[in-house]
């Protein structure tokens, strides 16, 4: 069910955000399958460039034993989202068995894939496509290349694979399909549900504020018409007038008292309520972030995730605490005011009420207009912050190259630029609001102009408008401005809130890619046997980082992973720890596929020491016992001693209680490394991964670390990645990785016996360097 939903979302993304079909047109598919004698299309990709590099629509299709390219015979122009069956397609096909090689020539935006048959004969086919189609084309290419290497790869549903490939970059930029603003808003408001009591109280208080705000102007009018004028005209006695007037004053006092008491309740309850909701969202977000797989973190920028937990939840607090109530009550206020004005005097009321929608609309339009200014200012602001985030961490380089003046000049130029942009914004709004207020005041003047003749009355006739009504009217008119402003900006407020909500829900709705099956296996204890069976893997779905890697490692063996950078060494270790799942093949621990294991339990048996050890802000002790918070001081010291860390730690003024600082910055590289080894020793893993653990330290420190490592690796299955081959002297076997393949394996001596081998060459080079 979940899969279906994801596929449906992918298709919706393709339909909504691109101008290409969400699946291969039926007619094109029929043409291909017809040419194949009815055999089905297993995978396909859109080929969106023609030979002249114009946008086009052709389809690359993969069948059980054939490859085809479907084109429209006389087509020209652009891919369109159509699925019509009456189009004619021509399929150019060739058998898979004729394929001998596939060659991709990547370009800035156009890639070329050449299907090569017999050397020196014309290529079987050549297709060109933009990066948008690259993942889908890569799916086809992967299956064919695996076949060339003698492996068969099962293919899933062709439509799903295509839609997922095209939608992936958009989904990665925006996991939710936007547009369901109402649904997002509703979901956000549902967070208020558990605080129903407070919400009702806040709303009631806000309603009272709105209601009683209408009373003072009415009282003023009543006082003039029913007390002041009758007393002045001698119709009412001064005593009676005084009594009623004081009652009015008292009523006024009560009104303000009630209003402010309600304001207090409203502000306090809703502010607190907003904080609770923001807290709930933050907790939920952080819990969910902990569950997400590493793949998610490689796709999202850290800053963007921090913003979601901090600023976005804060913005939602503001919206829930005040935005919702302000917006709804402003609408009520505007309607209430209009009703009161029309009931007081409908003619004057119309003069005041009719322009209100126009004012609200102009505020809305002004907001839209300002949006362009804000985008421009935001872009220029990011240029300013770019310099800061570039130069402050790189200040040593700036100083070393004596570039302070140039950097200051660069910053000043951008600073002036962004200031101009902000001033442009100020110029716009400082013009708009006075003009708008002038229009509002013009309405008030119009009210005066209409009211005057009726206030004064015709000769020998009673005035048709009382002074009290007029005064009430004027007081009410001043109350229009606030709600108008809120209503005019409501679209922007809601948009900002839904954007934040979207960003928060996007994280909450992302499912971890690594999920345990319902009844996972727990290996107790893990022996430490590790096997890769024909494993292929790519991080981005385009580039295969591992291609058909197979090996078996016995418990207690130490394996040195060597080879050029980008060869796939770290990826091997990532798959052992099941940070990612394989694309093809299987990784087994003690004979059981890691996808069947309890991931948490598996990782508790795996220790990792990285080139750049990551220490958390806290004491040395906290870091050593990160995996075992319950470890006793004795065990912590024992681990530190085994890691050759004890001596330097006790020399620190605060010993094991020393705060290591953010990422361990208060310690040197070698010290951080030894703390991380102590952490791994205390963790006591069955399988240990050492990723370039000694590469960033001096010789003396390296010797210390090497000693510690020797103690650490004893009795465990170890995978050690190293560029310096000398650090792998204890390895039982060496695996040489190159371009995603395991190209050589064996002991140091065995590998050296192959003089043309990759290892022998690497070793030769390092020996030359060592000799100098």
């Amino acid at each position, binding site marked *: 069910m979940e899969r279906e939903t994801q596929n449906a979302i992918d298709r919706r993304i393709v339909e909504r955000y691109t101008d290409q079909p969400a699946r291969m047109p039926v007619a094109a598919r029929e043409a291909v399958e017809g040419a194949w004698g009815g055999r089905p299309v297993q995978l396909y990709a859109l080929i969106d460039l023609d030979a002249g590099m*114009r*946008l086009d629509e052709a389809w690359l299709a993969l069948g059980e034993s054939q490859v085809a390219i479907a084109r429209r015979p006389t087509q020209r122009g652009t891919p369109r989202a159509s699925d019509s069956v009456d189009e004619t397609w021509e399929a150019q096909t060739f058998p898979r068995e004729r394929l001998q090689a596939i060659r991709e020539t990547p370009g*800035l935006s156009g890639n070329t894939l050449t299907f090569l048959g017999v050397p020196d004969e*014309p290529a079987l086919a050549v297709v060109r496509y933009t*990066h948008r189609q690259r993942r889908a084309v890569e799916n086809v290419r992967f299956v064919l290349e695996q076949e060339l290497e003698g492996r068969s790869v099962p293919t899933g549903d062709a439509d799903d694979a295509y839609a997922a490939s095209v939608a992936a*970059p*958009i989904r990665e930029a925006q996991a939710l399909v936007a547009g369901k603003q109402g649904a997002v808003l509703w979901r956000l408001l549902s967070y208020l549900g558990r605080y129903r009591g407070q919400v009702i109280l806040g709303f009631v208080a806000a309603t009272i504020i709105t209601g009683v705000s209408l009373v003072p102007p009415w009282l003023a009018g009543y006082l003039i018409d029913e007390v002041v004028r009758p007393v002045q005209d001698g119709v009412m006695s001064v005593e009676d007038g005084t009594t009623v007037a004081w009652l009015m004053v008292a009523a006024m006092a009560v009104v303000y008292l009630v209003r402010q008491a309600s304001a207090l309740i409203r502000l306090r309850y809703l502010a607190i309520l907003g904080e609770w909701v923001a807290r709930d969202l933050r907790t939920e977000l952080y819990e969910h972030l902990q569950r997400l797989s590493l793949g998610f973190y490689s796709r999202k920028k850290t800053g963007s995730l921090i913003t979601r937990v901090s600023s976005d939840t804060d913005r939602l607090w503001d919206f829930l605490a005040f935005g919702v109530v302000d917006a709804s009550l402003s609408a009520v206020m505007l309607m209430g005011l209009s009703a009161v004005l029309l009931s007081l005097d409908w003619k004057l009321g119309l003069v005041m009420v009719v322009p209100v929608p126009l004012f609200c609309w102009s505020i809305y339009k002004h907001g839209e207009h300002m949006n362009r200014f804000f*985008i*421009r200012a935001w872009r220029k602001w990011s240029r300013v912050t770019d310099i800061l985030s570039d130069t402050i961490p790189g200040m040593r380089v700036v100083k070393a190259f004596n570039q302070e003046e140039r950097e200051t000049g660069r910053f000043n130029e951008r600073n002036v630029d962004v200031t101009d942009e902000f001033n442009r914004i100020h110029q716009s709004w400082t013009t708009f609001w006075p003009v708008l207020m002038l229009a509002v005041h013009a309405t008030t003047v119009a009210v005066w102009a209409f009211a005057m003749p009726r206030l004064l009355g015709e000769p020998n006739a009673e005035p048709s408008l009382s002074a009290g009504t007029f005064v009430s009217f004027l007081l009410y008119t001043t109350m229009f401005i606030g709600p108008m402003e809120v209503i005019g900006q409501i679209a922007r407020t809601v948009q900002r809130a839904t954007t934040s909500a979207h960003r928060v829900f996007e994280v909450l709705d992302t499912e971890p890619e690594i999920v345990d099956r319902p009844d996972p296996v727990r290996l107790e204890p893990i022996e430490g046997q590790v096997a890769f069976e024909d494993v292929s893997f790519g991080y981005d779905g385009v580039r295969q980082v591992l291609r058909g890697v197979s090996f078996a490692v016995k418990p207690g063996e130490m394996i040195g992973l060597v080879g050029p950078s980008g060869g796939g060494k770290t990826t091997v270790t990532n798959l052992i720890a099941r940070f990612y799942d394989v694309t093809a093949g299987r990784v087994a621990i003690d004979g059981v596929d890691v996808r069947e294991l309890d991931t948490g339990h598996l990782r508790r048996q795996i220790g990792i020491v990285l080139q750049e050890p990551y220490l958390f802000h806290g004491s040395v002790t906290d870091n050593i016992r990160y995996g075992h918070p319950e470890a006793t001081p004795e065990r912590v010291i024992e681990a530190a001693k085994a890691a050759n860390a004890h001596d330097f730690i006790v020399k620190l003024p605060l010993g094991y209680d020393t705060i290591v600082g953010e990422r361990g910055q208060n310690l040197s590289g070698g010290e951080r490394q030894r703390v991380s080894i102590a952490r791994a020793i205390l963790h006591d893993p069955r399988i240990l991964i050492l990723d370039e653990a000694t590469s960033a330290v001096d010789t003396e420190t390296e010797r210390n670390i090497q000693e510690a490592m020797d103690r650490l690796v004893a009795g465990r299955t170890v995978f050690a990645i190293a560029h310096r081959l000398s650090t792998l002297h204890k390895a039982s076997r060496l695996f040489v990785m190159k371009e995603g393949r395991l190209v050589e394996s064996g002991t140091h001596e065995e590998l050296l016996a192959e003089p043309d081998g990759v290892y022998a060459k690497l070793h030769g080079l390092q020996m030359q360097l060592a000799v100098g």
Partner: protein
Amino acid sequence: MIRLSEKYQGLAELTLERRTDGQLWASGDDWAKPVRVHRCFPWSEPGRFLSLRDDDGEVALVGGLDELDDPSRRVLESAIAEAGFVLEVTRIMNVEEEVEIRTWEVETRQGPRIFQTRLDDWPTTVPGGGIVIRDVAGDLYHVADPTGLDGKSRKWLWAFVD
């Protein structure tokens, strides 16, 4: 300046041809191999410093097209046109913002196209002139002369160019 990689030094002049298999082949006296062309400065020096490479690394670095004989030059010209292909924007019909992404509806020299950029991924100015917009899939859209676009396009683009 054609600088052949060390292993091909001392060999005859470089010639380039597009063979029947559709690939670009570089050859010398007694060697020939399929190569790909990479431009060292795709924006600032598009026709110079062209690195011809195979899977093992650089075969030759061609300083400029005029250093090759006519047939080789024509072959290399077409190869760099292909490698440097970007969509050339001629008109902007709409730019719309949504959560996290901005959708552009444009007319390009190659045909109409709708694409998305991340909200914080701004168009960049390129040394050769104009601006370039990178979409979420990595495709590049070049606006060679933003001031030469029609008024409506310029209005859409205003917020994104200086």
